[in-house]
């Protein structure tokens, strides 16, 4: 199967998973959910790394890649930490 079709299969299956996993989230955690998916969408950092780290990449691409890495990193770090802060609040109540 050509790569594009593989991508399509994976996309379609992931959409079903997305549908079910998100409807399963309990309403009281909807705000943390927003923060967490925000952090997770920082996964574009993988794309940014691939653009920046390529051998013999031109300077323009390298600088563009640098900014992409930077922005995605803000997202990853900021997103996970803020989610953690929020969830810690939910957690301490259980003790």
């Amino acid at each position, binding site marked *: 199967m050509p790569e594009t079709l593989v991508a399509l299969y994976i996309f379609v299956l992931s959409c079903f998973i997305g549908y079910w996993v998100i409807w399963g989230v309990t309403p009281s955690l909807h705000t943390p959910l927003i923060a967490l998916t*925000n952090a*997770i969408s920082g*996964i574009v950092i993988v794309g940014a790394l691939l653009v920046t780290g390529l051998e013999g990449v031109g300077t323009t691409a390298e600088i563009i*890649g640098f900014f992409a890495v930077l922005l995605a990193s803000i997202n990853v770090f900021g997103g996970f930490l803020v989610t953690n802060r929020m969830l810690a609040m939910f957690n301490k109540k259980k003790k």
Partner: protein
Amino acid sequence: MMEISVNAQAIAYLVSAILFILALKGLTHPASAQRGNYLAMAGMVIAIVATLMGSEVRSYGFILAGVAVGGVIGTVIAMRIQMTAMPQLVAALHSFVGMAAVLVAIGTFLNKQADGLLNSVLMGELSAGIIIGAITFSGSVIAFGKLQGMISGRPVKFKGQHLLNALLAIATIGFAVHFALTESTVSLTIMTLLAFTLGFTLIIPIGGADMPVIVSMLNSYSGWAAAATGFTLQNNLLIIVGALVGFSGAILSLIMCRAMNRSIFNVVFGGFGTAGVEGDSAADDAMQKGVKSAAIEDAIYWMEDANKVIIIPGYGMAVAQAQHSMKELMEQLEARGVEVKFAIHPVAGRMPGHMNVLLAEADIPYENVVEMDEINPEFATADVALVVGANDVVNPAAKDDPTSPIYGMPVLDAGKAHHVFVIKRSMRPGYSGVENRLYYQDNTSLIFGDAKDVSEGMVNQLKGSAH
């Protein structure tokens, strides 16, 4: 750095995808939520390490610099931000994802062009990534500005605005097609600029009050942008994660719209929540309109001897940061044998689950926090309903006035309690801009003032009075 094979990388990516899915599944319950977050972190670390160890990544200078700077900025923001500013933060972070997606697509274009690997399908996918990313970016910037109060929250409406947007969208797609067919850098540039513009013109007309729905919609876009990037890079991890995020945003927007009994179309094209009645002197206004205003003492008088008090927090409690005083108030009342419950409306505040986070922050136990459907039958047996900075979510018009714009939205039956006290600063309406008849009911009294000041006043009085 040690290098791993393409296959090993693919397996690492699969593990990472599984971790992300399990992470979101962790949010099914508060008890497993934090573990979920750790799983997601692990997934991200695995994804990043596997990418760096792959044969495609050769130079690390710019990467390390980017991660270091971005990491510090992100950490500082996350540590400093107040819980009440979450909507803004999320909007800001979305803009970064959008911009990163645009940059990745352009960088990919440059790399592939240098290697002579371009083809129409690839350029089509690149265009999709750039357009979605750019709209996400500029839309999120506007949303951030409106939420932060930097841009007027009023809907900026002008004639022919829908026509303009339609033309912009058509032009964007036109240049994208031209680019995909001819590899023209000029078309690519124009397409990119048009997409940025479209993000502005689409979101500017929407009132500040509707921003939460918009932020969630943009969350969804940021996911689709990541998925589009995955298609261009033939990276399945990006596709999987993009779809997860895309659905998350879409479903949350849907939930918000349903809870407000509106359609997403109405939000995007409607212009709602903008009545903006400018209240003058609160008391004057109240007198004119014939509402009863009360003092803190009056409320205390009824609450301290009550059997059951139900507190209804709303957006005003979030703004005033009154959640900690709520906790103290609860404790004082419980010490007097009063049963205290918090009634949570699904769209109280400005994000889904907003009140739950704030009450959790203040350490209020789960058992005392009750969802709408469960608490509604209890109002009839409550001595006092204390409405703290909530408005639309207790508006009876949603139930019995078919002409009201919020008619059909499910609401909390606060008015059925024996006594109703409402803490707010003025007679200004809430988010929807709709008048609230609850305030004119015989059993309702308004306590004018900031939610935090008033509730602290209550706590002090209770502490003062012997029991």
